[in-house]
């Protein structure tokens, strides 16, 4: 595999919080690659550094050491102006709490990244309609978030994360605030997106059910990757789910008991 083919490279990422005498090594040398079209999951016990890892990739926090390369470019060393250009356009985000602006309609929320980056709306019209019908939110485009259900909100948020056709979508527990049914619908949609359009997705989740939609899962503990699961070709989701549970059980069980 040549270097060019890798979408994202995480190289020996370290992140320390706190000062010398009271230091927390949230990430302690994490390295992995993401290939285009992958649906990568990250799992691990609470406090293992999952969010920190995602935030480093999302350029929300700066790593103490190590690099994050997107298309070979070290985005962790970008200044704020370059970052603003990347955020929302090359990187899409999906949050546990949706992070929709509650004084904008669904459509306005979805289009927000485009307007921020000064993209002409005419060009996005088709894309908007496409995403809206894919996520089944056409009817609620003109509603305000307060008038939507949680699942609808998250699907609007998902449409927003995809509107600018980013290279990668980062999702931190996107199903965390959803009930099982809504979570399943969302994961189906994300998986569909990944399958049909080859969208690359990096998702952090506690939920083995959600994680079972991924094509590969990294398990981290105490700031290091300690295991990796790959979904075999033609492996059913149920089987993959069982394998995930087994790994989680090895981890000390905490998270597996959630279900």
């Amino acid at each position, binding site marked *: 595999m040549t270097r060019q083919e890798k979408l994202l490279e995480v190289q020996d990422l370290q992140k320390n919080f706190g000062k010398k005498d009271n230091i927390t090594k949230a990430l302690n040398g994490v390295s992995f690659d993401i290939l285009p079209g992958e649906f990568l999951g990250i799992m691990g016990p609470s406090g293992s550094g999952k969010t920190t890892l995602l935030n480093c990739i999302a350029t929300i*926090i700066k790593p103490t050491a190590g690099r994050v390369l997107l298309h070979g470019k070290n985005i962790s060393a970008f200044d704020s102006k370059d970052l603003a250009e990347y955020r929302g356009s090359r990187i899409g985000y999906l949050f546990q709490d949706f992070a*929709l*602006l509650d004084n904008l309609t669904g459509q*306005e929320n979805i*289009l927000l990244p485009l307007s921020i980056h000064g993209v002409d709306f005419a060009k996005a019209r088709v894309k908007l309609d496409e995403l809206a019908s894919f996520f089944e939110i056409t009817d609620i485009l003109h509603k*305000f978030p*307060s008038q939507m259900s949680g699942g609808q909100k998250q699907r609007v948020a998902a449409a927003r994360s995809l509107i600018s056709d980013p290279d990668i979508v980062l999702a931190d527990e996107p199903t965390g605030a959803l009930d099982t049914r809504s979570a399943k619908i969302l994961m189906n949609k994300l998986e569909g997106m990944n399958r049909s359009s080859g969208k690359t997705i990096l998702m952090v989740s506690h939920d083995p059910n959600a994680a079972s939609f991924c094509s590969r899962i990294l398990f981290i503990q105490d700031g290091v990757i300690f295991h990796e699961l790959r979904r075999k070709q033609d492996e059913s989701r149920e089987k993959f789910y069982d394998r995930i549970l087994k790994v989680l059980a090895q981890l000390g069980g905490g998270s597996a008991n959630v279900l």
Partner: protein
Amino acid sequence: MFSRLIYRNANRSRKENLIYFATLVTAVASFYIILSLGRQDVILFLKEFESDAIDKLLSLMPLVYLFALLLLFFLILFANQYQLNRRSKEFGLYLMLGMRKERLVLQLAAEGLMTSIFALIGGILIGAFLAEIISLTVSKLVGQGIIGHQISLSVSAIIFTIIGFLFIQLIALVILGGRLFNQEVHQLLYEQMDKKQDMGHFKGNIIHILVGIVLLGVAYWIVLYRFMDFAGLLLFVALALGCLGTIFFMRGFGKLFGLLASLSEGKSTKGLRTFTLRQFQENVANKSTSVAVTSILITLSIILITNGASTIIGFDSAITRTSSLYDFTVHGDHQKVEQFLTSEKMVPYVEDLNLLEIGKMKYKDEQGDGNSPSSLVDWSELREQLIMALPSDYKEQLLSGEMQGYTISSENHEALNLLGVLEIDAKAPYLIPESSYNGLLKAIGEKSLNLHADEIALYFNPDLLHMDNLERMPVLDRILEKAEKEGQSLMSIQGQTISIRPSTPMRGLVADRSVEIHSAFIVPDPMFEQFLNTETYVSYWNFRIPQKLQDEQGLMKPMMEARDLLQSSGFQFESYLQNFGRQLFYVVAGSYTTLYVGFLFLIIACTVLALQFLTQMKQTGQRYVTLSMLGATRKQMKTSMHRQVLLAFLLPMSLACVSAAVGIKAMISFVVIRIEDNAFLYPIAFAFACVVILIFVIYGVAVSRSAGHEIDKLRWKPNID
């Protein structure tokens, strides 16, 4: 430890919340200014001449003070509420950590006291400084160099300022503290803006806006065309309608605006435009009533400030001596007064000494038909001519007998005023001997009248008739000249035809107002003797301060010296100083209070707008975090925020400008305020407009900076779940 916390919190709230602190300081300063009014140079000066009126004015000041106290109480309540809301999370935490509520409230009270003390120090310093500046400016501007300057610092004003301010601060904190006391910890920790997005129905919005526009329209119509009906009672109706209309308009506008935003959505998505509009809409729609109230306050403040400013502008024209000629008028025994005024010590101050004799004309000896004595004067021809000269609508009214009574006004046609005056006066007119009036004419450098034995001249008081031109009365002169040419006689006295001399220059007869007459006949001296009703005879000695002395020392100084001399002489006298003082008093009384209340309204409106904006900013701070996650730069967010500030201030301001323009127009046309074209008009109007705009800009900038600070502070804090 506890006191350290109080001190640190008080310090912090001062630094972090400049607007809150500035509001407190403004409140203190405005209390001080109104309370120290009695120490202003102009007021001290006026006390010498118009002590009664000044006392009355000063006795009114406690009312203004109470009014200001009440207004600022609401402002302070609002400001404190804003401040507490900001910190509700912090309080929630204190309580979570086991602090008792009593203790928290106690701590708040202590912090409030600390902040109050700082606000008092700052406010009194600023207030004293402003009072000093106002005192100096006013005495320079209107005092013509005779008003001396004294430091205006007033201890009693300071004391009452402190008492008043602490009082309202205390009440505000008691109310808010009580509310805090009754809140659940959870409420404190997670207090959020009510998230409901009530967009209303399109129809409802249209109806709101329409109702608003109709109400405003009716209010404008009343103000413009029915200003004085029902003794001005309609004005209150207009005010009420205007307020209601503004509220409806804002309510409808806020929501409709959102619909407009959603209609335009998609057409142009450049930058944060949609976001900006939505933020603005939320601010207006959710707070439509208070936006409307600020709009009303701004309207009132613009009207009041214009009114106050126009009084100041009018001062110049009131004080320029167009018709007033003499500086002193002395009353008393003929010979003794003359002796005194020509004595050695007075001579340097006396020029154009002239005796004014005046008295009423006798009636016919025999009684008329009724009980009222009949007049010697027959002016029916002149009356006829004046009626012919009237504008046609008045002519009809008069001839059909519809018109009853006259009002003399500067708005009236000249002929109407003359008719009105003569109708009352001509029965037993005042008589002035030609020799008296010649002395006056000589003083202004005009030729003597040299009346024939059967000739008179008509005198009209230029002050009471509001004459534009003192040298001519166009309508009257035309009638008189025509009669002269055609040999027609317009008047007879005791059956003898009399000709009337046209184009007599008119001036004030005395220095101030010992002779308040509308009209008089200037008659040859023999005729004066012949027709005078001796019971009504009075005489005055008039004189002026010599021009040379005025050139050397200015008018005021020699005038004050002459006044002192006359005062010691024991004669009754009046001087132009009284006239000046009275005019000055009207200006001061009229402008001080209106300007004060006007600026108070303005500041309150601005503060409410500012705090409201910052509250929204604080409560929706998370949105900016999301925006930055989606790639918005700080610059973009700040641009959006600046636009929001601009819109938030411009919306109430624009409606206020329209309403105020209507109000001012009405006040001009009904001469509540008189805008005369004079040299002062533009600089003063400009200065006031600048001050108002400056206040807006200062608030706008302060809000932008605070909000910018909030944006700078935003850090995306990863949730540690």
